[in-house]
């Protein structure tokens, strides 16, 4: 029987981690992740989990210790935000290149400078090409569900890659929502026993991790990593199907909302998708065929499936809660544009940057964007391909 509770996003993810009961957790405090790990530390102090905590002196060391612990041969978690993720950057590549299934909730927060502790996606976007799987979450329920599924995906023997579960700082991490918890036993059964692969602790079979590979074979290893990435979406769908059987909640590579017959559409990650769906409904009520696509598996990005889902639209706006400086457009825009590139007939694409540093994303912002898209769909003329919205002029 599912238990219905009112909890913060941080609390929900901490509870998912308790239910999974990892062997080792190395972690360092940072706003807005801190509450999640405080809650998890409480589980440790009260014997609710078997987990050994490593309370490191920096995020660089938390990811470094996770690499050691994971290679040793057990289930490993950490969590971070913003500057902490940036400090881990070097070791993120080592975790994925070494094929270690470490799970890391990332409570999305802006990057400094200027210093800001509130929610935006700059942190995880900066780590989008590190070889980690990224699952993004609209609300506390999705963050909880994604966390549980992430273990099955990352630890799959065909993949063995680390995974981040992204949720919006404060907006989700610190807001109380109604969510449904699975039973402890159900989660335990769903994630299963951890299966070590070439563990360091198997002293009878000594292995060397982290070799030097020069011009002769480095490229072959990189190609192999790329080939593994291409298997991820299939596993994500299989795990989602199993999860649906257990929970009744359906997950895919992305969520489409009233998109099948839509003419205009929004692409938007995480919490702002909820606000946008309400406004899509209002436009539908007015007879305007609006829809929405919310990416879930953002890395590896399912280009083919996304392009296929969007190609019939007339005009699409990609809303980015991060900018890619010097890249002309926001990061999600670049991926959506790539996914549509192969099609002869494709929608007009525009890009809006919103909500940086925790700036509110309001229904009127979605309204303005959808109205603009309706105009583009009608006239084909575009006023501006990229602009910041909800910003002082």
């Amino acid at each position, binding site marked *: 029987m599912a238990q219905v509770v009112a909890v913060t996003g941080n609390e929900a993810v901490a509870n998912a981690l308790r239910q999974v009961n990892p062997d080792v957790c190395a972690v360092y405090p940072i706003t807005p992740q801190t509450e999640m790990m405080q809650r998890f530390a409480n589980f440790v102090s009260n014997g609710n989990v078997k987990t050994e905590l490593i309370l490191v002196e920096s995020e660089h060391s938390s990811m*470094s210790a996770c690499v050691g612990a994971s290679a040793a041969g057990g289930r490993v978690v950490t969590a971070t935000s913003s500057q902490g993720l940036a400090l881990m950057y070097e070791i993120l590549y*080592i975790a994925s290149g070494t094929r270690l299934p470490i799970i890391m909730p990332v409570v999305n927060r802006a990057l400094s400078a200027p210093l800001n502790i509130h929610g935006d996606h700059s942190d995880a976007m900066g780590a989008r090409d590190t070889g980690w799987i990224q699952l993004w979450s609209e609300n506390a329920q999705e963050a909880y569900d994604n966390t549980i599924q992430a273990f099955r995906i990352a630890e799959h023997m065909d993949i063995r890659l680390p995974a981040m579960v992204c949720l919006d700082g404060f907006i989700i991490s610190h807001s109380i929502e109604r969510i449904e918890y699975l039973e402890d036993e159900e989660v335990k059964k769903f994630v299963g026993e951890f299966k070590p692969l070439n563990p360091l602790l198997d*002293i009878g079979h000594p292995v060397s991790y982290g070799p030097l590979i020069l011009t002769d074979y480095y490229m072959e290893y990189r190609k192999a990593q790329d080939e593994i990435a291409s298997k991820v979406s299939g596993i994500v769908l299989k795990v989602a199907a199993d999860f649906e059987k257990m929970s009744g909640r359906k997950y895919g590579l992305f969520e489409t909302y009233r998109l099948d017959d839509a003419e205009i559409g929004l692409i938007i990650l995480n919490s702002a998708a909820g606000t946008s769906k309400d406004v899509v409904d209002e436009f539908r009520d007015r007879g305007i065929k609006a829809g929405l696509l919310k990416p879930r598996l953002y890395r590896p990005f399912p280009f083919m499936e996304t392009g296929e889902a969007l190609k019939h639209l007339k005009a699409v706006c990609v809303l980015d809660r991060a900018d890619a400086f010097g890249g002309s457009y926001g990061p999600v825009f670049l991926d959506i544009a790539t996914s549509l590139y192969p099609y002869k007939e494709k929608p007009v694409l525009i890009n809006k940057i919103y909500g940086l540093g925790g700036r509110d994303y309001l229904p009127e912002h979605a309204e303005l964007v959808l109205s603009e898209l309706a105009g583009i769909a009608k006239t084909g003329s575009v006023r501006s391909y990229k602009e910041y919205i909800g910003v002082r002029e």
Partner: protein
Amino acid sequence: MAKALTLKELSKKEVLISPGHRMCAGCGAPTVVKMVLLASDYPIIAANATGCLEVSTCISDYTAWKIPWIHNAFENAAATISGVETMYRSLKKQGKIDKEIKFIAFGGDGGTYDIGIQSLSGAMERGHDMLYICYDNEAYMNTGIQRSSATPYGADTTTRPAGSVVPGKTEQRKNLTKIMAAHNIPFAAQASPSHWSDLVKKVRKALDITGPKFMNIISPCNRGWRSRTDDSILLSRLAVETCFWPLYEIENGITKITVKPKEKKPVIDFLKPQGRFKHLFKPENEALLAGIQADIDREWERLQKEEACFAS
């Protein structure tokens, strides 16, 4: 307490770093690693900071390591082994593993004194059951002899070359062994491959102590020290005999000098055979040499007083 091993007994043990690795001829580091691994009666899992030792011992698809070994990055060998050790504790507690295993991290002076000191300090403070071994060759040798905070005063390096106005390194080296001892860990020591018996004894003692341990082992580099290929044991012995590298241990806060030179030799005996100090022997640098000797005398004096404090 593990009993002391004789040379005969050591010679019968399996060497756990195999020949065929690609360290330079005459390098001190593989000798140090060989002695450390021979010293242990326990199975060892090792972490290795990026550096000469790491790049030369595991070039895919070959490895010189006959024990489980992990290289992560340059500055995080201590954090990495702390993760391995914690997983061991977790699985042992859960009854999934029952063997007694010991954990060692190896790092050069760059990866230990400089870029890795935060990770090392954190791991020592957290109390992991691990031994960190710094093989100190006194500069960034892997990248080509750049100055580190372990480089001694006056040494010629590629980033602080001795020139017409700069006489090599103009700062003192950091006393990392003291810094580690200040973490109040149960065991911190200095060793030298020239004094194998002392080195082996210290490793055996360290591995029998539960908790974080640190050993700083001088490791001559003929490329960087500009010395003869076959002089690494000679130079590490001179480092000890001149008190440039005193052999001591601090066990539970009590300092003990483990090897006292019968006759303290002048530091120039250690400096002279090394090309990196050649410029110091020019007449105009006489004062610098005198300064180096004075620094060594002062530190040796201080160390003896420190030991005397605890003498019963």
